[in-house]
């Protein structure tokens, strides 16, 4: 694994951008270029993939600290060789996601409902804000309430608040054993079936596609055996989760909507191509309508993840529109972190 600290160079680049009010697109290896609004033409690209390497990893502390340009695959491999893992199971798009992108997008995989989300495992970040300074928030310890939780605020902010230099993450032991099962189950029975497993501990993923409920059990052999007796079902290819996590199973979709709702919600239960997160995540493929209208009365949100640029109505948001007061808070935070508005402008919402 290469290790290189480019902090000084990146700092200079940011300072130049802010001094000239020149917007930049922050990019690792560009595996998530599809996610969020595309940058205006001729926006300069701030490349961070060279800023890479593991800074600190002591398995006994359950903490890893890595530079933003480090490939996710390298981190996964290192952790795995110590029988540990990133429990939020970040998607590795095209096998070239970097840790900076993992944190900036804040995306979590099928394990999310059972283990927690990206931000749940973030312990600290070092970043460059629009003030052109290298700052550190949080740290490498498990509990820390000194100052506002900037590291979690930055997680999922799509690079709009600053450039993430490195991140410290809590890691967890890998389960001793794991098995994926397939159970033929009709969509209408999905929720009651999942409910019956609410207190069955070794569940680490549950999704439904084409009349099959996919379950992943993780834990000790004994725990898995006893759980299997209750669930039934045949062992099936665990590659299912990877395909789902990286959206490879939607490769033919022209328009892909990600709908996040409470697991027991009734919305799009029938229409969803795939339901993940034990019911909480529903994927709509080429629905032919904007699902956000139907979400109005729901506590949830929709993201247009894949789309044909040319067919996008002018001014439409890809992420769920925010209520006025909350949008206002976003704009004020953006103003504080990035007064010149140089970091990924409009990538998340058009207003900032």
């Amino acid at each position, binding site marked *: 694994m290469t290790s290189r600290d480019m902090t000084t160079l990146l700092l200079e680049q940011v300072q130049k951008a802010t001094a000239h009010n020149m917007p930049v697109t922050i990019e690792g290896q560009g595996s998530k270029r599809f996610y969020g609004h595309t940058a205006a033409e001729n926006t300069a690209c701030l490349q961070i993939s060279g800023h890479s390497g593991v800074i600190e990893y002591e398995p006994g502390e359950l903490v890893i600290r890595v530079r933003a340009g480090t490939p996710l695959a390298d981190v996964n491999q290192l952790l795995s060789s110590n029988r540990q893992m990133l429990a939020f199971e970040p998607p590795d798009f095209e096998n070239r996601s970097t840790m900076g992108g993992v944190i900036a997008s804040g995306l979590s995989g099928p394990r*999310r409902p059972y283990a927690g989300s990206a931000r749940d495992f973030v312990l600290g970040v070092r970043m460059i804000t629009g003030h052109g300074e290298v700052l550190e928030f949080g*740290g490498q*310890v*498990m509990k820390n*309430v000194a100052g506002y939780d900037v590291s979690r605020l930055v997680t999922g902010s799509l690079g709009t608040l600053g450039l993430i230099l490195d991140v410290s993450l809590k890691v967890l032991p890998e389960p001793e054993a794991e098995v994926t099962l397939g159970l033929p189950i009709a969509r209408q029975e999905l929720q009651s079936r999942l409910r019956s497993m609410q207190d069955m501990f070794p569940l680490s993923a549950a999704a439904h596609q084409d009349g099959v409920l996919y379950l992943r059990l993780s834990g000790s052999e*004994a725990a898995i055996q006893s759980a299997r007796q209750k669930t039934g079902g045949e062992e099936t290819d665990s590659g299912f989760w990877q395909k789902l996590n990286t959206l490879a199973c939607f490769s033919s979709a022209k328009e892909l909507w990600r709908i996040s709702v409470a697991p027991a919600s009734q919305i799009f239960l029938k229409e969803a191509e795939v339901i993940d997160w034990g019911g909480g995540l529903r994927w709509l493929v080429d629905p032919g309508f904007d699902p956000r209208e139907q979400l109005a009365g729901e506590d949830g*949100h929709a993201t247009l993840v894949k789309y044909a640029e040319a067919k996008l109505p002018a001014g439409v948001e890809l992420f769920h529109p925010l209520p006025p007061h909350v949008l206002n*808070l976003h704009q004020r935070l953006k103003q504080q972190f990035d007064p010149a508005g140089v970091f990924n402008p409009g990538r998340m919402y058009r207003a900032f």
Partner: protein
Amino acid sequence: MDVDRQGFIRELREICGDNIITDRPRLRVYETDGLTAKRQVPWVVVLPSNISEVQQIARLCDSHRVPLVARGAGTGLSGGATPHAEGVLLSLARFNRILSVDSENMLAKVEPGVTNLAISEHVEHLGLYYAPDPSSQIACSIGGNVAENSGGVHCLKYGLTVHNVRKLKLVSPQGDLYEVGSEAFDSAGYDLLAVLHGSEGMLGIVVEVTVKLLAKPEAVCVVMSGFASVESAATAVGDIIATGILPAGLEMMDKPAIQAAEAFVHAGYPTDAEALLLCELDGIEAELQSQLDILQAVLQKNNALDISVAHSDADRARLWMGRKSAFPAVGRLAPDYFCMDGTIPRKQLARVLGEISELSREFGLPVANVFHAGDGNLHPLILYDANLEGDLEKAEQFGAKILELCIEVGGTITGEHGVGLEKIDQMCVQFSPAELAVFHGVKAAFDPNLILNPGKAVPTLHRCAEFGAMHVHAGQDKFPDLERF
């Protein structure tokens, strides 16, 4: 404060009727929180009974630039709820209803004044519970838990408050009502839910909390073991984590704490041990026995003196009782105590404990240690007597030294109790001026007129300059230009 005081109180009365306190004897009830070293009688206390009243009070305070301090149960240990002499203290005591339980989505919606324990009690018949369990859980409010991002003995496995709250309803200082988070597993936009956790009443008033509930584990056991030295107990902690087992709780106490707790609640602790570990395992029946075997082997390898395993509810409760009453138990040893709250990398446990006992000798003040060993979160309890000339100052200096030691070994000045008034000077040591400026920026985004809980949590740069202990990083002052702030 240039306010027509009489007029202002008249307006408050119009908003919340008789639920207002202005007479000194009754105001004194609110003069302190759990940090009793800091006392301040508030100008006025209001106890609104609905959200609309909170909105009107906020608007009134904001328009007159009157400080507004929220208060839950007042059990905070850093002075977060210490009143402001010229401000309104807003008690959420009347917000004490559990609004709904959604067992399908495993969520409960509650008002902020509901106590932590009341939630678990309320859903017990459904086989559910709310995981974070601060030792103050019978008294502290869920609103206060959010504001401090409180932890408990079970957060090693189940996380802090921030990991267990899905959604908040808040009143902004301008009186706007808004929501952050969602009943879904994530929400659109920035993670405001995370920023609000641990924000110590500085960013908004929490008026509703949606918490995540968990199914009670099928099987639980608590293993207690004594050690002949703090070092061997600390090594055992690291070895346990290294096995890949994630205990539900992993707590440690030193000799003074063991003895105090034993004398107080008779938990059956070995009073001759130098250190005690309590390790809780939970999960499914099929898994527990093998984990227990591994755990016992690790303890034996580290020369644990006596190992006992508690399976029944009553036995487990007895063992935890000693740990959970450690603060009041130690409190009986001296007229006053200071509870510190640093977090350090686990591997530094033995070193830091050693230095703390040296400092104890140096300052001539006894110290007892109870801590969340699995998380590296220390709670040294410094014993002193406020009636002895200079004792309080000595205790404060001792505490400050401990916090600086935590920073030195790569840790933080507060793991779960918050900065409040208590640790505000140490913030200058942990953060650079530019980092503090970012905190001030976050504050300004939420509370442009700076009326919420002024003077707490984040020091002004002037204060840091006066304190004279500026953040020093890698041997040099990172940002020497104070000018621009």
